C-alpha cells in the first residue's frame, strides 16, 4: 500500500469518526439509539460518496462499496427466500411440529391440490429444490437439469400466453383506431387545441400518428422485399419513428438518472449534513 493511500485512508477514517460523533450529537434529543443511528447515517453517506467517486476514476473506496453491496444483497436475498418461502409458505402447511419449531402458526390448508394425497403436493417443489442444489456437486450436477427444465418449460408456457394476450392481441387491437371523425363544424374540430386535451383534431392526429407509425415501423422490419420506392420511403419513415421512440426513451432515462442524483443529494444535504430543512 502506497504512502498516499495510507494518508488518504487515515483522513477518511478521521472524517468518518468526526461525522459519526457530530451526527450522533445532533440526534441526541430525538432518539434513544442516537449512537447507532448516527453511525448508520454516516456509513450510508460514506458509501454514497464512495460510489459517486467512480465518476472521477476507479478507486478502492468504490470497489469496497461495490463488493459490500453485492455480498449483502446476495445474503439478504438468500435469507429472505428461506424465511418468506420455506418458513413462511411451506413449513406452516407441512407440519405442526416444524411450525412450532419455527414459531409460525400452522395452517390447515384448504387450497391444496386434491388430486394428490394430503401434503404430498408440497413435497414436489421441495424435491425439485433439493435437486436444483445438486448443481453444487461435480458428480451429481447433471440432476439439476431436471428442475431447471421444469422451470424453463413452465416459464416458457406462461410467457407464451402472456405475450400473446397482453403484448400482441391487445396491442394489435389498440391500433385499430378511427382515422376520421364525424364533422361537427370547425369550432368542435379545433376545440381543446393542445397536446393534453382530447378534442377532435388532436384525437384524429394522434390516431394517424399511431396508424402510420405502426405501419412504417413494421415495413422497416420486413426484410423479404428490397427497401426501394414507396416501400423504401415507408421504411425511412419507420426509422424516424423508431429514432423518435428511442429519443423519448433516452430522455426519460436522463430524467431518471437525474432523479436518482436528486435522491442522493437529498440524503446528503438533508439527512446527513442537515444543511436544508
Amino acid at each position, binding site marked *: 500500500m502506497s504512502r498516499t493511500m495510507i494518508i488518504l485512508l487515515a483522513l477518511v477514517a478521521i472524517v468518518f469518526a468526526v461525522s459519526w460523533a457530530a451526527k450522533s450529537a445532533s440526534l441526541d434529543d430525538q432518539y434513544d439509539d442516537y449512537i447507532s443511528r448516527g453511525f448508520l447515517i454516516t456509513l450510508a453517506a460514506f458509501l454514497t460518496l464512495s460510489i459517486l467517486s467512480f465518476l472521477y476514476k476507479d478507486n478502492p473506496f468504490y470497489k469496497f462499496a461495490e463488493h459490500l453491496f453485492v455480498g449483502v444483497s446476495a445474503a439478504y436475498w438468500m435469507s429472505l427466500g428461506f424465511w418468506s418461502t420455506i418458513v413462511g409458505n411451506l413449513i*406452516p*402447511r407441512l407440519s405442526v411440529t416444524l411450525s412450532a419449531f419455527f414459531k409460525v402458526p400452522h395452517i390447515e390448508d384448504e387450497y391444496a391440490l386434491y388430486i394428490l394425497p394430503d401434503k404430498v403436493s408440497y413435497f414436489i417443489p421441495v424435491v425439485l429444490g433439493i435437486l436444483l442444489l445438486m448443481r453444487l456437486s461435480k458428480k451429481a450436477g447433471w440432476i439439476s437439469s431436471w428442475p431447471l427444465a421444469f422451470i424453463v418449460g413452465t416459464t416458457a408456457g406462461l410467457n407464451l400466453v402472456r405475450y400473446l394476450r397482453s403484448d400482441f392481441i391487445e396491442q394489435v387491437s389498440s391500433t385499430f383506431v378511427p382515422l376520421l371523425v364525424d364533422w361537427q363544424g370547425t369550432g368542435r374540430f379545433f376545440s381543446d387545441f393542445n397536446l393534453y386535451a382530447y378534442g377532435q383534431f388532436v384525437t384524429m392526429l394522434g390516431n394517424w400518428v399511431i396508424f402510420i407509425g405502426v405501419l412504417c415501423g413494421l415495413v422497416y422490419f420486413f426484410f423479404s422485399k428490397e427497401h426501394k420506392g414507396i416501400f423504401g420511403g415507408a421504411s425511412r419513415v419507420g426509422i424516424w419513428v423508431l429514432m423518435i421512440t428511442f429519443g423519448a426513451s433516452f430522455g*426519460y432515462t436522463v430524467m431518471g438518472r437525474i*432523479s436518482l*442524483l*436528486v435522491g442522493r*443529494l437529498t440524503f446528503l444535504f438533508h439527512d446527513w449534513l442537515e444543511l*436544508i430543512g
Partner: protein
Amino acid sequence: MNIFDRMMSLDRRWVFLFVALVCVITYLIPFSIKINITPEVKSIYDHVESLKAGDYILLAIDYDPNALAELHPMTYAIAEQAFRKELKVIFVTLSQNGPGMADQAIRDISDSLRLEKTYNGITYPARQLINGKDYVFLGYKPYPALVILGMGQNFRLPFPSDYYGTPLDSIPMMKGVLNYDQIKCVIDFAAGNVADMWISYGQGRYNFPLALGMTGVMGADYYPYLNSGQVFGLMGGLLGAAQYESLADNPGPAIDGMRIQLYAHIVIILFILMGNIGFLVTRRKKQV
C-alpha cells in the same frame, strides 16, 4: 487546437462536475416551478378520489432502494391520500428489497396521519393507523408472476400470514377479502419487469383496474399499455410523482426535486448542443 476541437476532446468528468454543481446550487436555493398535470397521472388521482371510505385498494411496492428517489414520493402521496379518505390499503411487495421500502413508507405515513392536515381545501382530522384494521402488509414472496396469479385465486395462497406473522384469517380487515374481486384498483410502483407481470398475469387474467407508477427509465415503454386501456393511469419518474403531489396538494420531495431536474436538463441539453456543433464544425474542417 481551437474551441471546437476542445469541445470534441472535453473530458467527461467536466460534464459530471458541471451537472453536479448545477444540481447542488439549485438544490440549496429554494424556488418553485410550475408543474403541468398530464391526463395519465390525473386519472389515477381521480380514480382514488372517486373511491368511498372502506373501499379496498392494493399498493404493490415493487422497488428496491435504488429506485427510492423516484418511487417513494409516489407511494407516499397515494398512500396518504388513500388513508386520509379512510380506504383500506393492502400493501404487497414482489421485489426482494421491497419490504424495507414498504415498512418505512407505512411508518412515515402513520406519523404524518397523526397530524390534522388540509389538502385541496378539505381538512382531514388526525388519525391513528391500526395494522390489520386500516391496512395490511402482506410482505414479500419471490417469483412475481406466480404470486400475482396466486393472489387472483386467494390472497392466502401465496401469503398465509402477513409480513408480521399474523395469519390472514385472523386479521379483521381481511375477513371476506378473498382475491382481486374485492379490490377496487391495484397501483403498482415498479422499478423492473414486475410491471409487465402485473399487466399480463394480473390485469390480463383477472381484469382489475391497474395503474402504474414507474421509474423514468421505464416510462416511455409503457405508454402503449395506456393507449390500449390495459392500464388506466401512468406516473413516470420523479415528474409523475411531482404531478401527483401537486394534484393531492401534498408537496414533497418530488416537487422539490423538479427545479433541480429543470436546470440539470438545461445543462445536459447545452452539452449535447455543444458536442454536436463541435462535431459538425470539425467534420467540415476535415472535409475541406
